[in-house]
């Protein structure tokens, strides 16, 4: 199989997966016990009795299931995701996009910090295998990895927002500075201030995932013959690590980082919930509590597609970086 066939095949698979996600999304929400026509109807003292039936007709819920399915597929693809049950004036698409931008800001920053710090720790631990630094960083890493994110967030919030009120306890922007646009320097500082504790919480949660994989991958690479060659030709350890070992050990990182990122697009919900950070995770939890199905359906779709696309992109990067795949 040459590279072009490989890429075509991977893309086709990703496409099928997205279609299947849409099918699952349709089926699951049809299996809900609640009747959407009833949920969509607000009742007042003067509403006509047949309002539920009118709504059923209006939203196409009286059509046969296959027609509804076709309608759903088309609407999902062109972004007609309907209205939120909770905030009826809000289009789901706008709502989700607005929250998504906050989450991306938080997750993007966190991912960059995590990658740099995590790789540094992993490289050093692999280089010093079995030494105190390795044992300590692995042990401490697993410890922090094991703390439930919400619990760690609560403790951080307690210490740095209540006991020593250095940072704000929650939200994305001080209410006095709203709205966000037009952006001023003061607002940027305030947004960063609000982001600090949530991003520390997320970083601690993901750091060990990155550093442990980096350590494992580099340990593998360090046993390869070309490392012995590099040593034999007189390179210092530092040169050997930077030029020969680290680039090769980075390959597994590509998929890991992509996957981490994509999953968090689906919602850093624990962190956002604890710090009431106004992103897509908080929206998810709120939508769950109020059974806001159109919003949940949209998040389900976006979250799934994000993972599929991230995997696809990661694979393409690996095909590009790793010449062995082109040969085989």
């Amino acid at each position, binding site marked *: 199989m040459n590279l072009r066939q490989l890429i075509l095949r991977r893309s086709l698979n990703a496409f099928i997966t997205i279609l*299947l996600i849409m099918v699952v999304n349709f089926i*699951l929400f049809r299996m809900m016990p609640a009747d959407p026509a009833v949920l969509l109807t607000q009742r007042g003292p003067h509403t006509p009795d047949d309002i539920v039936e009118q709504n059923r007709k209006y939203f196409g819920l009286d059509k046969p299931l296959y027609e509804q399915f076709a309608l759903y597929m088309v609407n999902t693809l062109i972004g007609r995701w309907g209205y939120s049950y909770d905030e009826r004036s809000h289009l789901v698409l706008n709502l989700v996009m607005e929250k998504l931008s906050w989450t991306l800001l938080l997750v993007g920053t966190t991912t960059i910090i995590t990658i740099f710090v995590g790789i540094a720790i992993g490289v050093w631990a692999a280089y010093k295998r079995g030494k105190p630094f390795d044992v300590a960083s692995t042990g401490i890493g697993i410890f922090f990895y*094991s703390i*439930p994110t919400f619990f760690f967030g609560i403790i951080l919030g*307690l210490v740095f927002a209540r006991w020593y009120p250095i940072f704000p306890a929650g939200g994305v922007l001080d209410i006095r500075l709203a709205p966000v646009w037009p952006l001023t320097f003061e607002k940027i500082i305030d947004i960063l201030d609000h982001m600090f504790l949530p991003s520390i919480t997320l970083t601690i949660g993901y750091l060990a995932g990155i550093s442990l994989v980096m350590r494992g991958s580099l340990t593998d690479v360090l046993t390869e013959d070309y490392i012995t060659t590099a040593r034999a030709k007189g390179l210092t350890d530092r040169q050997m690590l930077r030029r020969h070992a680290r680039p090769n050990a980075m390959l597994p990182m590509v998929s890991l980082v992509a996957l981490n990122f994509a999953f968090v697009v*689906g919602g850093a*919900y624990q962190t956002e919930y604890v710090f009431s950070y106004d992103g897509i995770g908080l929206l998810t939890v709120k939508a769950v509590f109020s059974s806001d199905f159109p919003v949940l359906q949209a*998040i*389900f779709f976006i979250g799934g597609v994000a993972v599929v696309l991230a995997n696809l992109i990661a694979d393409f990067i690996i095909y590009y970086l790793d010449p062995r795949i082109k040969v085989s």
Partner: protein
Amino acid sequence: MGRDSSRKTHASPGAREGAWAVRREQLRFLKQRLVTTARMFLKNRMGVAGLIILVFFLQLAVFAPLWAPYNPDPILRPTGDPDEDRLGGRLAPPNATFLFGTDNQRRDVLSRVIFGSRISLAVGFAASAVSMGLGTLIGLVAGFWGGWRDELIMRITDVFLSLPFLVFAIIVAAILGQINLWQIVIVIGITFWAGTARLVRSQVLSLKERQFVERSKALGSGDLHLVARHIFPNVVPIIFAEAILTIALAILTESTLSFLGLGPQDQLTWGRLLEDAFNFQALESDNPWFMFMPGLCLVTVIVGFTFTGYALDDVLNPKLRKR
């Protein structure tokens, strides 16, 4: 059993005895392997630490009624004596009678944490078992029989690996109605099986090409025999370590769902305790231990499973064990 390859290699008048000899030899080999594995595991300090934690919490869960000083459920009623009441009052700080104080409903926190370990651990084990069973079975089918089954299964695992887990669990919970203990086990189980299926499949694919499988096939072994006697036993070490790690993941997931108020409402789990404490802002009350204790236990148990899992993986699947 008629197609047993070991018997065919000893096709002499003493065939039956030969088969027994082979079986005995296999058992001896298995025992030896277990002993070496145990020895190597005991040399791994991380693994031993994890195992000690696990043994402690497992016996705590099993013998909860012996350890817990009080009944976790009934509300400790005021007695009328002001000293007694302060002792066992609402949100009492830790004291000699109630080692970790009391919660917002005058219940003993220590006893609640001890009893909470039972269901948290049980859910972890059960959910891991469901996910491993499903994943192994599906992975074996995909890897061994391949073809269109493999394609189909891979597409399905793709979907399961891509879905945002929380939303999925919530929707399933909503479809099921009020979630109970079994349902949360199933929800967690069907969320994590896909990863295991992938792992097993890739292992089976490489095993299939190995010589001992070819040899057995040449001797006339059927598919089921091959899978049961040659493929599956070689998959076990990999899924064993994975199972331990999945227990940690399942416990974490259950507590997260419970914390968000999506767990079984009538069950006492650590996640439930944390949710109660969070809702009553326990950390700012007189007795922050109400929140710290379940959290600390949760972290310790998950560390225990993770340490044990990593150490087992190191011992059972040795590919990195060289300088």
